[in-house]
């Protein structure tokens, strides 16, 4: 039997770099209202923000779904972008395909996916080239 969860959905606009991260800001606010610990909220915010930025700079945007359970939070980021050819390579620190114009915006050091792994308790990346990417993260709440 599936535990009951609160579900929040966000559209992540892929054509607007300035608005990237708005979903993560809203999730941070919601989790604070729900009384989760600052530490848990920070881990989720950072990891979700990395994923949200990735969807905007690598995949023309996508969907963010957050499921809040009594003892854990699940974040699912899905896009229909170009996909990731070699996921284990993409997971390595310093690997990035971001072009120079992204680097001049402050991103593209190849640190996002490793950071998402570090801050989540479980990370799953499912990606098919030409179809898209789904990233699922789970956070046990303290």
């Amino acid at each position: 039997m599936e535990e009951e969860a609160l579900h929040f959905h966000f559209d992540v606009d892929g054509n607007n770099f300035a608005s990237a991260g708005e979903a993560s800001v809203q999730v941070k606010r919601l989790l604070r209202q729900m009384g989760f610990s600052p530490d848990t909220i920070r881990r989720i915010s950072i990891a979700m923000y990395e994923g949200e930025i990735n969807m905007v700079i690598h995949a023309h945007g996508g969907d963010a779904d957050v499921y809040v359970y009594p003892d854990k939070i699940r974040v699912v980021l899905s896009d229909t972008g170009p996909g990731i050819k070699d996921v284990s390579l993409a997971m390595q620190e310093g690997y990035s395909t971001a072009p120079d114009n992204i680097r001049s915006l402050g991103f593209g050091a190849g640190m996002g996916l490793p950071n998402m792994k570090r801050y989540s308790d479980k990370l799953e990346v499912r990606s098919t080239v030409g179809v898209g990417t789904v990233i699922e993260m789970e956070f046990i709440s303290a």
Partner: protein
Amino acid sequence: MTIREIAQILGASVHTAEEELLDKDIETAFGSDMMSDVLAFADEGSVLLSGLLNPQVIRTAHMLDMPCIVFVRGKKATPEILALAEESRIVVLETPIRLYSACGRLYTAGLDSR
């Protein structure tokens, strides 16, 4: 070190809608123009020094619960960025000093990194 003291040391102009935020005590600092590195390496609650100017600098700081951003090298925050900072309850400082020197001054005055 309080945000007020940081502003004094850097001769910075101060932008905040909440004067009382200036009394907030900060223990650590991080300087970078790469938000990727801030997200991966900075300690939560630090003051962020950066020469990069775009809305994602504010969001990055917000995610890390950073209470203050110092824009270095004379970068002037746009009204859009100031509004976003205010919404996030982040104090914005602007100093003409360059990144290395600004970090050096704060370090000399006793602000460390973890």
